[in-house]
């Protein structure tokens, strides 16, 4: 039996489960729901404790659920901005150098090509989960874990 308690009522015979700061629900002891409510409360406390441990600074790394499941639309948009940004830097840098040195079209052309290359390499990195590190090695924690376990590094993995 569940009872929604109005604030200010006497609560002496009930034990509580607090779900949200606003709603306070009481479970009357001895009724069917009482022990179940207690058990639920226990579970919630455990969950909350685990969550706090997970977010504290001293928790072991790697236990955290990864947020890699993002929508395809945001991935597509991200790829677009990566290409655009690299092209902006390449073309803009080329134009700036052109204006400074008076080599009118040439640095722009070189900058465009280099910017396009950088854009493609940015997209490659995003899609392969290489993150934003410079270079093309998968170093991110995978390599570290291998070193810890003493397993041989994969072929092509150089330091």
């Amino acid at each position, binding site marked *: 039996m569940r009872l929604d308690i109005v604030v200010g009522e006497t609560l002496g015979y009930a034990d509580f489960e607090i779900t949200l*700061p*606003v709603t306070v629900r009481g479970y009357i002891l001895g009724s069917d729901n009482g022990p179940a409510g207690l058990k639920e409360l226990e579970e919630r406390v455990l969950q909350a404790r685990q969550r706090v441990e997970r977010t504290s600074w001293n928790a072991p790394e790697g236990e955290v659920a990864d947020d890699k499941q993002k929508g395809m639309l945001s991935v597509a948009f991200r790829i677009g901005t990566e290409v*655009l940004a690299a092209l902006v830097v390449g073309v803009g*840098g080329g134009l700036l150098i052109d204006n400074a040195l008076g080599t009118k079209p040439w640095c722009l052309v070189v900058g465009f090509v280099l910017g396009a290359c950088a854009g493609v390499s940015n997209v490659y990195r995003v899609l392969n989960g290489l993150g934003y590190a*410079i270079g093309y*090695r998968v170093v991110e924690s995978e390599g570290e874990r291998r070193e810890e376990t003493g397993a041989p590094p994969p072929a092509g993995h150089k330091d």
Partner: protein
Amino acid sequence: MDPLHQFHINPIFKVVVGNTDVSFTNSSLSMIAVVVIVFSLMNYGMRSKSMVPGRLQSVAEMLYELIAGMVRDNAGHDARPFFPFVFTLFSFILFGNLLGMIPGVFTYTSHIIVTFALALFVFVMVTLVAIVKHGFKFFTSFMPHGVPIAMAPILVPIELISYMSRPISLSVRLFANMMAGHAMLKVFAGFTIMMIGSMGAVGYLAGAVPLVINIALIGFEIMVAFLQAYVFTILTCLYLKDALELH
């Protein structure tokens, strides 16, 4: 009716120093409003520091835990000194986005100069951290390992451009999302008004269709407001991680 009218910067107090216009504008007003909101949320919310948090305290604690977890997972333990910076960045962007969802309030994150300034600050800070921590090794990292030295004249500029494109992609992503979303809301709202204006009684019925779409879009925009603030800060964390553990 102009859907881009909402992005106009209007000075509230005109201030001109020398030849530079440093007026207090509607953009500055919403930035100050956000700073005040975040500051009072954190201070007023944590005032009681009770075991069982109240409403505001829950919000403050959730924000703290979200960012603490994000920094720890994505930037590593060494990034702990940067937690206040990342937290400030996240709350400034998030509350700026959300405040902009109130009709009539200026959304400063829909201006590329604001997001670019934020991204450039992140970029410069991350680069300085890498240089201070690793010294000259930072510059050698632009040459990928295991590549023949003959490739260097091509690869190093590409890597350099790729590195320098970070602040641009970071700022364009936030700005474009916010601006496109707000313009789209205005366009759909405009449809309703046009239909009522031109079709009379039938227009009230037909005008309900874009209105319904707009309601869905507002929900979507609130999600985008949160998501983009999250993406901006998570990428900041990833850049920090790269700078701290230069490979």
